């Protein structure tokens, strides 16, 4: 049950020859990359180029037409080791921030930082007892990012993490990402944010195929 929390120095995320189509339309093909611990991949490209689809395919939400995604050395499926942050925040507006976060911590298992510590890292400790629905767009996004710190998951798959964030929060987020990479994590992010960490690769999607 605690595989997610184990430290494997030779853990690698291997994506091979990925081909995904939806409704007969090719979204992307021939995507291949390999990430070792401490490495990140930034996916950029125009709207509709398939960035989110790539992340969902890697996370195992979509059927693959061809290719494979696996976590070596044990060839585990990605979801065993991954956090996935989609464009929504995965929080309930009727519950308080603390209730939301402690639910995620208990549900996902392999606890890392406590709820208060995680909130402090994104600079939002003061909203602990506020209803999530009462927060601003940027604050909601930061709380959603704090969720990633609650549980040990070496692989982070994040989709447009900086939507609605101001400059200061973007810097905070870049720092959290850098710390995760320095702590031997792996990141695949669809974002325009430059992340100044050695070992970050980049993948650019060109114009959407018509």
């Amino acid at each position: 049950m605690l595989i997610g929390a184990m430290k494997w120095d030779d853990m690698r995320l291997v994506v091979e020859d990925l081909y995904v189509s939806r409704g007969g339309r090719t979204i992307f093909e021939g995507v291949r990359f390999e990430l070792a611990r401490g490495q990140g991949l930034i996916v950029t490209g125009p709207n509709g180029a398939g960035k989110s689809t790539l992340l969902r395919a890697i996370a195992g939400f979509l059927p693959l037409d061809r290719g494979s995604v696996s976590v070596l050395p044990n060839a585990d499926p990605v979801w065993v080791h991954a956090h996935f942050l989609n464009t929504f925040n995965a929080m309930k507006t009727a519950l308080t921030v603390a209730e939301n976060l402690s639910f995620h911590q208990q549900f996902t298992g392999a606890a890392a930082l406590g709820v208060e510590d995680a909130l402090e890292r994104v600079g939002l400790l003061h909203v602990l007892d506020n209803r999530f629905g009462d927060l601003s767009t940027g604050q909601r996004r930061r709380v959603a990012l704090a969720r990633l710190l609650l549980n040990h998951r070496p692989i982070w798959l994040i989709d447009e993490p900086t939507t609605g964030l101001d400059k200061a929060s973007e810097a905070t987020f870049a720092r959290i990402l850098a710390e995760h990479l320095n702590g031997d994590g792996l990141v695949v992010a669809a974002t325009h944010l430059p992340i100044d960490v050695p070992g970050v690769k980049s993948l650019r999607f060109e114009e959407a195929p018509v």
Partner: protein
Amino acid sequence: MIALIIRDVRLGIRSGGSGLIGVLFFLSVVAVTPFAIGPDLNLLAQIGPAILWIGALLASLLGLDRLFQIDLEDGSLDVLVLARHDQPLALTVFSKCVAHWLITGLPLVIAAPLFGILLNMPLEATAATTATLLMGTPAITFIGAMGASVTATLPRGGLLVSVIVLPFVIPVLIFGVQAALGATLAGVPFMQPFLFLCATTLFFCVLGPLSAGYALRQLEG
């Protein structure tokens, strides 16, 4: 698992309404029936268990379509599905069903004895109907989870869920009403249909979460 039940129950209480609306709908079905049937007290007492069952059945179909939709809309469904290595999806669905029943099903069971009075039902019949509702309404939720999972991505899935779910609920209705009648009518057994009802609930508490979990994994979106 417990965390999910607590979250959903809290959510149901906090965002309010869903349980109370079910009870109000139940009340209106029960209150309208005597107007349609006429003021024949004996007849009402006789068909009382059936009316209570139909009312409770329709009321529990009400909120079913939202079971997974609320999680789909705010992105939490991705988290629930992604965690399937630590929290098997069937258990996750089971927990959601338990929470859903506590919020929407249990109030119906609690309200049933009061509504029995409106129908001039004898005490034993009311008690038996309440007992069958207690054992039978969870089955409706578990069967409903199957319908809710395949319609989660549809914007107006509510009616469709009811149409999908109703045929599967018929055995529950038959055994429930039969057991309730068995408590009052001479020569009609209570225990046999009641045990069949319990068995149906147990059967669907396994089949419902398993198949709903499978359907949720196939959702693209």
